């Protein structure tokens, strides 16, 4: 390497008294700027994470498979055309099951990759709080999933072309689907913080998401109601994403359903924070 032959430049910028000395753009004393700094940090981390999807083949493989599978389920198994309804029921019905595998696949790398590469040490010794890093990374993945979901727009166009659907219901369906994806993603975020092994992270998160589905899946609640009181069945079902996802499919934007998904996301991200803190506490 040729650079070995010349001496180190005696750059004046290195001297603290020199003019080249940079002050951090945000001074620590500016308390007003604190929330601004938080947003800038979250945005920076989010941008990097999102770019990470697209600089590797992950994004493209994921998008193609997601679109192929939604198409396959909606039109072939869901009998979209044979139904003769101007609605997207046969489209949204499959989302809890499709996301069960695809969302953990998109989220499993979030923290396990940082741990494997050792960049977690770099990231968390920056002037960044844990929750800024967690939220930034989560939002990046969620945005990516939102993009995948947005690319299903031809389905909405098709149904509008052939019939006269209630677009309010379709909109509510999309909102519900996005909330559902966010909940699964928050679970994956948590499991990926537990281990540096992405396979373990993936399997754990599929299991937890499966539980979130099955607790309110009709065949399971029917089985449960044979030997448990209806109250117990309702309580168990209340933990399920299915119970809360159905409302959106009917076109109802119930604040309780939104609150459910928001609290699943909030809780899982909180646990992620606890895990990340405890790992370092030794």
């Amino acid at each position: 390497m040729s650079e070995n032959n010349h001496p180190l430049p005696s750059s004046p910028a290195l001297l603290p008294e020199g003019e080249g000395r940079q002050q951090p753009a945000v001074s620590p004393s500016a308390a007003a700027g604190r929330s601004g700094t938080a947003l800038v940090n979250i945005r920076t981390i989010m941008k990097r994470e999102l770019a990470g999807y697209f600089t590797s083949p992950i994004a493209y493989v994921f998008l193609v498979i997601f679109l192929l599978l939604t198409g396959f389920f909606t039109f072939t198994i869901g009998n979209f055309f044979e139904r003769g309804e101007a609605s997207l029921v046969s489209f949204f019905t499959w989302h809890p099951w499709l996301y069960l595998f695809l969302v953990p696949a998109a989220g499993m790398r979030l923290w396990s990759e940082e741990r494997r590469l050792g960049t977690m040490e770099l990231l968390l010794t920056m002037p960044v709080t844990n929750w800024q890093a967690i939220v930034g990374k989560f939002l990046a993945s969620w945005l990516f999933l939102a993009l995948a979901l947005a690319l299903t727009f031809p389905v909405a166009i098709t149904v509008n072309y052939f019939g006269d659907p209630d677009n309010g219901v379709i909109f509510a369906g999309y909102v519900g689907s996005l909330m559902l994806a966010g909940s699964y993603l928050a679970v994956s975020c948590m499991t990926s913080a537990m281990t540096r092994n992405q396979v373990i992270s993936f399997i754990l998160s599929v299991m937890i998401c499966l539980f979130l589905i099955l607790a309110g899946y009709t065949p399971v609640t029917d089985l449960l109601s044979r030997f448990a009181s209806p109250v117990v069945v309702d309580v168990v079902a209340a933990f399920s994403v299915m119970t809360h996802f159905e409302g959106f499919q009917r076109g109802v934007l119930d604040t309780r359903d939104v609150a459910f998904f928001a609290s699943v996301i909030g809780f899982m991200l909180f646990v992620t924070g606890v895990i990340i803190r405890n790992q370092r506490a030794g």
Partner: protein
Amino acid sequence: MINVEHLVKAFGPKLAVNDVSFSVERGEVLGFLGPNGAGKSTTMRMITGYYPPTSGRITVGGHDMVEDPIAAKRLIGYLPENAPGYADMTVNGFLNFCAELRGLQGDARKRAVHRAVELCFLEGVLYQSIDTLSKGYKHRTCLAQSLIHDPDVLILDEPTDGLDPNQKHEVRGLIKRLGENKVVIFSTHILEEVEAACSRVIIIDRGRIVASGTPAELKARSPEGKLDEVFRAITLPDTVKHEVHA
């Protein structure tokens, strides 16, 4: 500038760092010397705020690392062991990312990246992704990251690990020059490095400080005036020490 008082770190029942205290002022280059697994990296991880200490206190520039971590972390540039980096990012993208997290924006960020790139000779690999870099370049990329905000405190965990002899020489020179008006703490197990770059040495063994002083003071402890003899005498387990002397 850096004050460490009675620092303890336990992993389960094992004490990785056991009652370590020292302080470093601006203009000093402190070398952490010790065998593998002595607690050098653990101590550095606590000073940089990555590991919370089990007990003890760390202040950096007057900011307590536990109570006011963000203010303390702003002052520090850190090169972790094995020089990690985001594999799929380019060197340029990575340095810009780090600069942004350091609160540098717009022109200030461009200047900071440019300066760090010059300082660590990264011009040739600026648009190469990090996983395609050789070990030396990967190391210098991470070193550039630690210098990007021109920090008052530099914590470098084995900064010359994996570099060729010429690069080692350069990095030592860089550390020495940076140490003139900053605080530099670096760890190594290469003894010649200590003599070449440090103004003060702390020898750590099994989580404890077993010796400290200037390189000259430590050398004076050995009849032959050799640092490696002192190092061996201090850090070898007692049983082995017996055999060596016998």
